[in-house]
């Protein structure tokens, strides 16, 4: 029995009061010990938490600002006068918004690309821009067959502003149109995005994308440019290479946002394969003369001319 003997109520109050005093003293002692132990334990936990969290988090591109416009100039495909116009177009845009221009010549990457089509040069060129401007936050690659048509629209207000991308992102849509079984993540958040790209009616469009500086950018460009992809004879070279890694490598897809085509790369009327609402309308940021450089019967300079005049007028009026 637990209470083997009843406690005898002593007729003398003295021992009882004494014991209660003792207990209160002890209680105080116990309390202080408990508080101290608790404090030490929580301190240890806090330190441990601080240390362990440091090892797994990835460094955001801290201390990087600004945008670099990456343009690849292929002097073997485009005439000098055409390229001059493209350069003027980019320089005007960069000056307006305080961006930096990075012009690269495709022939510089001959050795890197090797036997593969020279359109692969976009990957090392963007990597080169990142190496040259390590303190810049965003790299906007725009192919030489594209013209910026809305010079007053900054990339920030257009896409990069907080909350803006959240509205633009296409979630749970096939990565490669029209019916790839791999779809963009439905629960993706704006903060998880390192690559912003569009798709036309058939493929992703590497002619126009925005890449955030950082570890992902290095990883993405390196895996895209892997020699075994270049040697695989993809029908559309780097475009199909991009389609491939986007569908097979979830770590790439998880950091990628697809936006509607007209946000970053509207096609001209002459360019085939635009998405449903992908052809240029007045006010779009960019017009792309997709395929004008290597399609029989098309002439980039000729196609550019009317739009260039339009742009010149706009640029002067603002």
């Amino acid at each position, binding site marked *: *029995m*637990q*209470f*083997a*003997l*009843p*406690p005898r109520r002593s007729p003398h109050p003295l021992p*009882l009061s004494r*014991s*209660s005093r*003792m*207990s*209160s003293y*002890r*209680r105080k002692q*116990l309390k202080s010990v408990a508080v101290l132990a608790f404090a030490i334990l929580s301190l*240890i936990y806090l330190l*441990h938490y601080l240390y*362990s969290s*440091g*090892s*797994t988090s*990835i460094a955001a591109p801290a201390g990087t600002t600004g945008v670099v416009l990456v343009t690849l100039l292929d002097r073997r495909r485009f005439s000098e006068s055409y390229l001059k116009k493209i350069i003027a177009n980019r320089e005007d845009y960069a000056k307006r918004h305080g961006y930096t221009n990075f012009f690269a010549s495709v022939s*510089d*990457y001959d050795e*890197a690309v090797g036997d593969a089509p020279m359109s692969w040069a976009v990957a*090392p*060129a963007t*990597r*080169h821009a*990142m*190496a040259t401007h*390590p303190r810049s936050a965003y790299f906007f690659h725009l192919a030489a067959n594209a013209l910026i048509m809305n010079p007053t629209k900054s990339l920030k207000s257009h896409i990069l502003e907080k909350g803006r991308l959240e509205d633009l992102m296409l979630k749970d849509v096939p990565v490669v149109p029209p019916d790839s079984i791999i779809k963009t993540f439905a629960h993706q958040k704006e903060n998880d995005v390192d690559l912003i790209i569009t798709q036309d009616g058939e493929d992703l469009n590497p002619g126009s994308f925005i890449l955030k500086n950082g*570890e992902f950018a*290095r*990883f993405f460009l*390196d*895996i895209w440019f*892997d*020699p*075994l*992809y270049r*040697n*695989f004879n993809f029908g559309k070279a780097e475009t199909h290479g991009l389609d*491939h*890694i986007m569908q*097979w*490598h*979830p*770590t*790439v897809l998880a950091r990628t946002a697809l936006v509607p085509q007209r946000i970053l790369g509207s096609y001209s009327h002459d360019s085939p394969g635009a998405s449903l609402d992908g052809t240029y309308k007045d006010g779009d940021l960019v017009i792309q003369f997709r395929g004008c450089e290597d399609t029989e019967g098309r002439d980039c300079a000729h196609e550019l001319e009317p739009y260039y005049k339009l742009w010149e007028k706009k640029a002067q009026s603002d």
Partner: protein
Amino acid sequence: MTLSRSPSPRAGGGWSSPGLIPASGTTSPRGASPGSLSPGTPTGISWAAAKAKSDEVRGYPSFQTRNSGFFSRQRHKISTRFHSFRRPSSREYVDKDDYGRDWKSSGGGRGLICGLRTPIRRGRFRLLLALLLVWIGCLFCWPTIVQTYRRSPIGGGSKFVIILGSNVEGGVMEWKGAREWAVERNSIWNKKRYAKKWGYELELANLLAKKRYSHEWRESWEKGDVIREAMRKYPDAEWFWWLDLNTWVMEYDTSLQHHLFNDLESHVYRDITANNPLNITHPLPEFWLDELGRSLEGDGKADSLNMLLTQDCDGFNLGSFFLRRSLWTDRLLDAWWDPVMYEQMHMKWEHKEQDALEYIYQSQPWVRSSVGFLPQRSINAYPPGACDDGDDSVVHYQQDAHDLIVNMAGCMFGRDCWSEIYHYRELSNWLARSSWERFRHGLGDVYDRVTGKPKDD
């Protein structure tokens, strides 16, 4: 004895806590059976104490100043217990959960208690009792305490997971004989013992021949999936150590923290030119890469190391390697297998994922800065004959250096895995013999020398 009311202090009956009365479970709490109450005590239950007890159980906030503190209650209980020392009747209740029970019943203790009857000495008696309890605790609980500590976040053991690739092929391609089973059993036992000692997690990967991996493009690519699964299963772990089945941990007393991770930078070399059997171009010369991509030593910080592996005489070896949980590792495991690459290379990549890793290390600059190489013997020593026929002390196990682990690499090709494992099992047991055995061995040696007996090995 019948009670006019239920002895339970609770309204509606029921004991405050089951198991506190003798023969609880045999008596129903409502119908108090007379036998369950101790005879000779007319008021078998102290009402005040029971009320205090029930207060404690119910956890109502108490504003009493008297007799409500933990110590004062315990004091009362302890002092009632002392009565039992004085008149130990055979019918008295003995608390089975009491630590002091054995001690009480021991004959030697009684005389001691008689001497301590006076209240003045109670303090000393309690001190003695406490010391004794601590001593018993030390004897029985010390290994448990040490293990619990090592497993805890402070001890750091839970940061490591050992993944042991077992049941390779599951006996599908070749019949698993007694030797294969023996290898498996022993190797698992060996890793279990090591993991338990240091509080590491051990994950046994069942590498059955699955249909998913049987396609010619995907043979033996389970490694990546298994590691990913382990990372999901142990969300708090940081380092994942892959071990092939044909390995043997030789030194149970060497922890991974002490062996490598407390001072990782000093053990690791990132400049592959220091030992470059594959003749990999390093650092990369490409002008369009950034400084990190072209650097000899990556960024030089231990934090950026996400993979640790060794090279044998033919290049990378994945019999024993570490991966750290990180974004980099996710990307590596993702990039490691790719259908377009494998379609082109599966005839050339004889060692599958090992060759594929060598390839992406060479072709993709982002990989390099996070890969650290360890001297081979630190986590992947080979038995003689596993690497060429030479006896290179860089590659092969050195008993005097107490290498942590032996990997019987390639033992299934013309060598005998089980006899090698058995040899190293016996050797490690001999190396880990206790100091008493060492002393005995030493004594034996001296005796032999004195008596002039020839030493037999």
